[in-house]
Structures are given as structure tokens and as C-alpha cells.
């Protein structure tokens, strides 16, 4: 099976709120001392792909769209044993969702044939959650969102996909090619690369395609949407810490407060 996994490099979402600043003029977060990391849902997507390849064979190509620093997330994917890596070199810092989807679609078309394209359900920075859907439209394939796993279907050229819903899950069977957006699940918690594989990943080849080679016009960014404002909201809530001389007194105080609210509704 030919699997393409789209991954995105983002500012580490685990940085504490107190260290987080935005550059209002540039309308993006300040890098500060934060690391750049692979978006967690993209890691879930790669893990899902690795499991399918391990079980059924095939090839995994990871693709990202970004500047030179984005090479790092491709190296990490290679360390995790992705077979090939492609950087779609883009100078744009805050691309709009359609621009990203068009760029990825152009890169993916150069990689044809493929059976399935995986993307994370959304990114931990802008969280737009549009790449998968727009990519499917650009590639004219169906799309299944919020999947936790997939496997070969009942006949060649078909896949079975299990996805999360608001109250459980749904199973679909789809023809290929197909775009799937991957969400987190206890079965796709990303594996950690071995140190030796990390070192070796720097020796593996990495393909780079500039936008011009993909026929993408840099000026088309922003035609879909743009950030009109970005700010850190101020919200101060004062927490009353319940106290008491004994544990029992504290629990009583908590029970009283909770019971009061329960009675009032």
C-alpha cells in the first residue's frame, strides 16, 4: 500500500501559558525559547501509517510544506522508518488553509500513484482543521475525518476506516485513493525513535521541491482567509481555596459548596 503522510511543524504547544507571547503586528506567536516540534496529530497519523505498513507491507512517504527548518520533522519521520521524505519549500510563514492544501496536492500529484493520504485532524498551533477536507477536494477523493485506524478492505482498492464520532465510532469502507484525517487514540500513541535511527536519518536522502516547480503561485496566499487580529485574552478568575483544620472539614466544605450548586439547578 502506498501511504502518504502529511506532517506539519509547529511551535511546541506544551509551552506554559505564562511563557507564551504573540507578535500582534506579525499576527503570529513569538518563538521565544520554545522548540519547534511535529504536530501531535501528525505524529498520530505517522504512527497509524507505520502500524498498517508493519502489518500489510507498503511504502510511506512523508510530506511537509515549509521553510528549511521544517526539514527537522522530516528527519524525525525518517528516524521512525518512513521510507521517503519530501519538503515542499515554501517561504510563507502564515499560509492560509487553501494555499497549504493546494501546495500539498501539487506535491502529492507528483508522487502518484498513492492509495491513501493521511493528515492530522488539526494542528496544535492554528487548529484550523481544514487541510484534510480541502486536500480531498483538490485531489477529488473522498475524505473520512477523525479516524483512529484503517486497514485493507474486503477487496483490492478498498480500505476500511474506523473513526470517532460524538458518542462512539463508525466503520466505513471506501474506495482508494482516499484522504483520512487522524485523531488521537490509545492505539496510535506515537513511538519514540531509537538514537541510532535518529543519527542514521541524517544520512537518508530528502527530496526538495520549490513552489515554482509545483506550479504554485506565492501571491495566491491570503485569498482565502487572513488573520485580522491576534491577541492574548486577559481573564482573571480568583480561586477560593477551601480550607479546614482536618481533612474531614475540608471535604465537608467542598461537599457543602457542591451541594449548594446542585440544589440551585
Amino acid at each position, binding site marked *: 500500500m502506498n501511504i502518504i503522510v502529511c506532517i506539519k511543524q509547529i*511551535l511546541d504547544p*506544551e509551552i506554559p*501559558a505564562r511563557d*507564551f507571547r*504573540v507578535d500582534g503586528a506579525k499576527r503570529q*506567536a513569538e518563538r521565544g525559547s520554545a522548540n519547534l516540534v511535529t504536530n501531535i*496529530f501528525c505524529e498520530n497519523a505517522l504512527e497509524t501509517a507505520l502500524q498498517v505498513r508493519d502489518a500489510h507491507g507498503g511504502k510511506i512517504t512523508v510530506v511537509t510544506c515549509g521553510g528549511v527548518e521544517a526539514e527537522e520533522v522530516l528527519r524525525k519521520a525518517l528516524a521512525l522508518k518512513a521510507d521517503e521524505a519530501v519538503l515542499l519549500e515554501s517561504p510563507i510563514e502564515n499560509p492560509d488553509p487553501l494555499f497549504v492544501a493546494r501546495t500539498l496536492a501539487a506535491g502529492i500529484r507528483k508522487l502518484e500513484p498513492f492509495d491513501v493520504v493521511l493528515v492530522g*485532524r488539526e494542528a496544535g*498551533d492554528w*487548529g*484550523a*482543521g*481544514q487541510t*484534510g*477536507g*480541502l486536500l480531498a*477536494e483538490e485531489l477529488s477523493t*473522498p*475524505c473520512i475525518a*477523525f479516524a483512529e485506524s484503517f486497514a485493507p478492505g474486503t477487496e483490492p482498492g478498498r480500505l*476500511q476506516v474506523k473513526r*470517532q*464520532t*460524538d*458518542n*462512539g*465510532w*463508525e*466503520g*466505513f469502507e471506501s*474506495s482508494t485513493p482516499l484522504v483520512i484525517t487522524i*485523531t*488521537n487514540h*490509545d492505539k496510535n*500513541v506515537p513511538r519514540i525513535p531509537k538514537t541510532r535511527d535518529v543519527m542514521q536519518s541524517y544520512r537518508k536522502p530528502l527530496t526538495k521541491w520549490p513552489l515554482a516547480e509545483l506550479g504554485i503561485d506565492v501571491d495566491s496566499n*491570503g485569498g*482565502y*482567509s*487572513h*488573520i*485580522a*487580529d*491576534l491577541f*492574548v485574552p486577559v*481573564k482573571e*478568575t480568583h*480561586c*477560593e*481555596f*477551601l480550607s479546614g483544620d482536618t*481533612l474531614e472539614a*475540608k*471535604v465537608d466544605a*467542598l461537599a457543602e*459548596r*457542591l*451541594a449548594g*450548586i*446542585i440544589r440551585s*439547578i
Partner: protein
Amino acid sequence: MPDVVACLWGRAGMDRAAQGLLGAGRRLAESLGEKLHAVVVGPVDPAAVEAARTAADKVVLVEDELLAEYNAENYLAALTAVCGQLAPRAVLLGNDVYSQELTARLAHRLGGSAAGDAVDVAIADGQLRATRGVYGGKATAVIALAKTPAVVWIRARAMAPAPARAPGEVELLSLGLAQDSRVSLISSHADAKEGVRLEEARLIVSGGRGLGGPGPFEQLQALAAAMGAQMAASRAACDAGWVPASWQVGQTGKKVAPELYLAVAISGASQHIMGIADSKVICAINRDPDAPIFKHCRFGLVEDYQKVIGPLTAKLGQHA
């Protein structure tokens, strides 16, 4: 020509999400001095249609046997056809899985632009602007949608319903959809969970990674039962497989808006807060006084949950 279309799923009925969606749609339509149409897709509950009539100027029912069960490709084809005909300036959807799945694709097919997880929508400089949390809830962005229609899924559950008015007309639309045979639903499963849905719950007890395993979640469930509350969890607890993924609350989980949210052994990462910020009262039990969750709490207890849950359950059981 309507300027605002709100898309509802027939099967969901007139729940809080549908009411909030129509409320948001009505406010946006009024600010534009235009009309609100509700488009109801899939099998329909007549009581829900009656309720929708009092919020929208017109209710368009899209019924087709291909829409009997949800299938993204068929639902997308139906929405594209209806919204294409109505040619609105804005299309609003709710914050359920189906809406989230379809929003960007619908925008693409209609030649518009999309945004998601909006907590507010408004018009400025002739463009629709969606306000939403970004960087895991650490910042707020206002996104200007350059192309029309603007297709936006919003956090409808937290929004006020539209005030009742004279009922609008109902139109039944038959589209004669062509079957998309590429994708078919082959199985589905609903997690066993008693009582009302989490998004509609007025009392929620939620557990985090600090509970350390599935066992303590059973204890927490006893507390929830004593309170008459629904259970939820942080992503870390769901990822660990202690509880089903459908319990997850947060940026990428459910967005809840209860009267009371009790967080037990949850640190309060910004991504978690994004799902609970609309709660009336947030309260936490955490042994770390510096846990960020307390910054969002009305009141809290700094303690080891293991010492608290048993006696608290007993106490609240007496009150009940």
C-alpha cells in the same frame, strides 16, 4: 435570497446545539438586515421542525433516502446543492463531528472560505469575521474570510437561542441525489453512557491523568452518580485507554457548558480549558496548588484525590 443559512442534522432534533446555531444565525442575519434560513438534512423529527420554524424565516427540509444514514459524500452533495441554490453570504454549522467534517469541503465546493470553532461571527469591512481560540487556547484570533460564502462551524451550544417569533414557512426539497458509491457505512457503535449527552449536561465530573488508572475512574463514577452528574475526562486519560475517546473534553474533544464542572486530578492545560471555558462554575481537586486549573476555578481543594473521593461521595450521597 437569504443571507444566512444554518445547517442542522434532522436526526439530532432541536437540541441545545441546534437552538444555539439558530440563535447565532438569527443575530447575524439581523446585523445584515437579511433573512435566516434553516436547512435540515436527513430524517426529520416533526417537533424539531416546528421549533425551527419559530427561529428561522424559512425551514428547508432536505429529505432523500440516500440521507437516511450519515455519509459525508452524500451529505456534502446535498448541502452543496441546497446552499448553491440559496447563494447565501454565510453558512453556519454546529460543533458536532459531521459539521466539522464537512465545513471546509463545503466552502471549497461553493467557492467560499471556511473557519471553525468560532465563538463569535460578525461582519466587518464587508467580510465575515470568525473569532476563535488558537495556539491551544492561549491566544484569540479574528479570521477574516475573504471569499463568499463564509462557511463556519461554531460553538453553538454555548450560544443563546433565538427569541421565538411568528413561525416561518416550510419547504420540502427533493434533490434527486446520485448515490456516491465510493464510501459506505459498514458498522457503528455508541458508547454506553447513561443520562443526557455530555454537551447537554448541567453537572460534569471529569478525571485526568493524575488518577493513575481505570480503577479510580470507577470511584469517580460513583461520585458522579451521587451528584447526578455526567462523566468526562482529559485527553491524557483517554489516550491512556482508561476511558473511551468520546469522553474527552477540550480543544479536540467535547465543548461543554455545564452549571458545574468538577475537575479531578486534571492539570488544566490550555487545550483542556478550551473545552470547559463556558462552564458556569469550574471547581478542581488537585494536590498541586500551582496547577493551572486553579486559575479558572471559582473554588478548589488542594488535596490528594484518593483521600477525598470516598468521603465526598458519601457526603453528597446523603444530600441527594
